[in-house]
């Protein structure tokens, strides 16, 4: 069975947030702060309001009150304070998009500007240790004595890596279409990775009871975390619609998305590793320095994968955060694991070279019996299997580790390896399954952001019901459906799937209908370390003339429990790896130190991989059984594909050139700087 919504997607009939046919719709366009810090002195909408077709100007001088406990990133127009350049300070509503956008440019905003600080550094005086890191993990962990471990090491590395600001850049811009009915009930078509949570946030922000709000997101054009939390367009559309008494649509521009829809924090990561004469780690320390806004503390869990990966008797991980005059960073595909594993897996490669060990072998030797930090047993762990299988498929045994010696014409060739990991979690969910005309209807407020949730849930239900998956219809993406958690944290299938299985089991007993709520089941989960693992192998070609880097092969081998749908799973892995390739070689948002905010706010300047970059990407997986996770035995696969890719490519660049570049992205400029 192909993707169940495939036909509507290839015929252009799938409706994304801004595409629902609504009569009499008005258009809103946001006005953004042009200072990085300070206060709005005055907003003058006169010139905008004079333009024909303009319906309203919203700003701190003319906005309805929002709830006092609203998320500061969503508390539009409630304060005169400007926390970052690009923050929404006003908006225009008009009959057409063209009029709204032109009028927005005519809104005059005067500011009192203060000096700003937008630069992250590892010695910033404002650095502090957050209490917890995303989602709710300890900021700091320590086991054993790292200094002692390093002191007794045969070989050690002490290396610092940097990753830049990265933007999710889903293809569908953040958009919302809001309308109020005569009973004061709000309907928002939103770009959302989770309509249940989105409804709660919108209701809370507007001070409404949740049942008065309905959020619909039938199709979502990618999110990668940036649509996992409610974004200001939903609130703005609701406010504007209430103000003008018409449905209001807002589609953020690509440029605006860079400012107000979240991003991955830049990181500075110091990794210290020691290894004894047998190639066993004596110490592992991983410290991450990162930023958040002055509005909200978002502390990415960057060093947490080091709590999971390798057996080290001395293990310390920590995070330091500084609050800058920047937008609040947020989730981007594999927050924590993605940047953290770039540093750890690059450092492991450096250690392998320092110790004269094969990088696969070093990892195998340090594969732990139990989760290193917690001591908990793993539900399953097949990193070694992934490394071995990948090494075999990649022809790793023929690799000469000597860097900088393989050449085809001007092209230097190298290979590299890195491990992948991602936690396997699940959240409580509800689901209902009913019979309908001899078929089955599964309903829950899940989201399909491109993962194929409908298809996967149909397969899961069909497996329990003992019918062909084509006979199961899945309805999701509507907050009026049974509550469900987000498509995020690689938890969707595990969370929703558990509820669907239980609902189907109930239906088998009942004959007509099954309802499930997995809250109690999940509470009873045993304490185990639950993670998916993988290994990625990269071959790169580096031009000695131009410094250009091309990935001539990228292979991922994953151990991620039972794969529910092989086609969809492969697509997810390939997609994650492709995004990881972008992170390695091209993706970077530049922070404007002089004026605040970001530069390169479009897709001509922020390069994501194009078709020509990702020609040789392969993903396979091990047959992994793990019955202690959920009824499907599945692990989440949406994020692990991006974890480790950048390190594998960076390690291959070292193998090709003999040089370590410890700052992403690895560009021709950096390669050329190596050879004056």
């Amino acid at each position, binding site marked *: 069975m192909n993707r169940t919504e495939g036909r509507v997607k290839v015929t252009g009939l799938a409706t*994304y947030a801004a*595409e629902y046919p609504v009569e009499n719709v008005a258009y809103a366009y946001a006005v953004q702060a042009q200072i990085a810090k300070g206060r709005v002195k005055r907003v003058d909408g006169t010139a905008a309001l004079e333009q024909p077709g303009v319906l309203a100007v919203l700003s701190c001088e003319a906005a309805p009150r929002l709830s006092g406990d609203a998320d500061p990133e969503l508390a539009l127009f409630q304060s005169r304070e400007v926390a970052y350049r690009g923050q929404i300070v006003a908006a225009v509503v008009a009959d057409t998009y063209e009029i709204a956008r032109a009028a927005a440019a005519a809104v005059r905003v005067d500011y009192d500007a203060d000096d700003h600080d937008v630069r992250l550094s590892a010695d910033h005086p404002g650095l502090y240790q957050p209490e917890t890191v995303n989602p709710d993990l300890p900021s700091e962990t320590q086991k054993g004595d790292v200094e002692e471990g390093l002191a007794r090491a045969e070989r050690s590395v002490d290396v610092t890596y940097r990753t830049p600001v990265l933007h999710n850049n889903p293809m569908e811009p953040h958009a919302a279409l809001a309308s109020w009915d005569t009973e004061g009930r709000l309907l928002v078509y939103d770009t959302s990775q989770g309509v249940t949570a989105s409804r709660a946030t919108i209701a809370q922000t507007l001070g409404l009871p949740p049942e008065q709000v309905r959020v619909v997101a039938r199709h979502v054009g990618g999110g990668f975390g940036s649509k996992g939390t409610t974004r200001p367009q939903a609130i703005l559309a609701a406010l504007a619609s209430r103000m003008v008494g018409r449905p209001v649509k807002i589609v953020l*521009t690509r440029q605006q998305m860079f400012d107000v829809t979240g991003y991955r924090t830049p990181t500075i990561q110091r990794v210290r590793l020691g290894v004894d004469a047998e190639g066993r780690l004596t110490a592992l320390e991983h410290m991450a320095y990162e930023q958040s806004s002055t509005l909200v503390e978002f502390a990415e869990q960057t060093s947490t994968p080091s709590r999971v990966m390798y057996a080290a008797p001395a293990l310390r991980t920590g995070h330091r955060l500084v609050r800058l005059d920047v937008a609040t960073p947020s989730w981007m595909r594999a927050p924590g694991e993605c940047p953290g594993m770039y540093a750890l897996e690059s450092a492991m490669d450096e250690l392998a070279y320092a110790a004269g060990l094969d990088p696969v072998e070093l990892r195998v030797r340090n594969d732990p019996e139990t989760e290193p930090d917690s001591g908990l047993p793993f539900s399953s762990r097949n990193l070694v299997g992934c490394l071995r299988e990948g090494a075999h498929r990649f022809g790793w045994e023929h690799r000469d580790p000597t860097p900088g010696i393989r050449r085809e014409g001007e092209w230097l060739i190298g290979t590299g390896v890195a491990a992948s990991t991602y936690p396997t979690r699940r959240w409580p969910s509800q689901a209902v399954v009913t019979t309908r005309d001899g078929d089955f209807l599964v309903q829950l407020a899940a989201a399909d952001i491109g993962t194929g949730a409908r298809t996967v849930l149909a397969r899961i239900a069909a497996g329990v019901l003992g019918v062909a998956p084509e006979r199961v219809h899945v309805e999701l993406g509507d907050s009026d459906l049974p509550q469900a958690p987000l498509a995020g944290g690689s938890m969707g299938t595990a969370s929703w799937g558990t509820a669907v299985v239980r609902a189907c089991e109930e239906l088998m007993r009942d004959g007509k209908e099954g309802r499930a709520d997995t809250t109690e089941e999940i509470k009873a989960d045993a304490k185990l370390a639950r993670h998916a693992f993988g290994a990625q192998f990269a071959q790169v070609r580096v031009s000695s003339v131009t410094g250009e880097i091309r990935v001539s092969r990228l292979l991922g081998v994953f151990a991620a429990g039972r794969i529910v749908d092989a086609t969809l799973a492969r697509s997810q892995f390939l997609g994650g790896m492709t995004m990881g390739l972008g992170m390695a070689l091209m993706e970077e948002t530049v922070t404007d130190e002089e004026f605040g905010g970001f530069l390169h706010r479009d897709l001509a300047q922020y390069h994501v991989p194009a078709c020509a970059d*990702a020609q040789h990407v392969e993903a396979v997986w091990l047959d992994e059984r793990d019955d202690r996770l959920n009824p499907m035995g599945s692990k989440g696969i949406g994020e692990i594909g991006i974890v480790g890719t950048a390190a594998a490519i960076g390690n291959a660049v070292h193998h090709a050139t003999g040089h370590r570049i410890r700052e992403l992205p690895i560009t021709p400029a950096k390669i050329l700087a190596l050879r004056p």
Partner: protein
Amino acid sequence: MNITLQVNGVPRTVDVDPRISLLDLLRERLGLIGAKKGCDHGQCGACTVLIDGRRANACLALAVAVDGSEVTTVEGLAADGELHPLQSAFMEHDAFQCGYCTPGQLCSAAGMLGEPGPSAVTGDILVDPDLTPEEISERMSGNLCRCGAYVNIVSAIGEVAR
């Protein structure tokens, strides 16, 4: 201004603001949501349609400037309910995930298959090359896919190109 376009074979006369793009005209005035707005600057290809048979970014075309043209959107690729071979191949090869870039990929591929001549990766510029995966990848690089479905997109198009 009044303009008339043949949209998917149907003549449409509309009174437009000269500022409106062909993309916004299709999406906001004509109810054709297939062409997508991804960047509004010709940098992502999600809005690709065929204008007089050639693939083009609908976001960069002022509607007034294409007055009189024939425009084919993804909604017009399928003839009489019969999917275009590219549409079927995209489904069979799982050549999309979120689906947002897909209409642009499809229109772009449809246009690309009819484009003669070499590309930036063609060896002998005097010879019109076979559409190898490398050629397809280069020719389709104006259509970004953040889900990273490229490998499947190329195999889907390759099947139709054969």
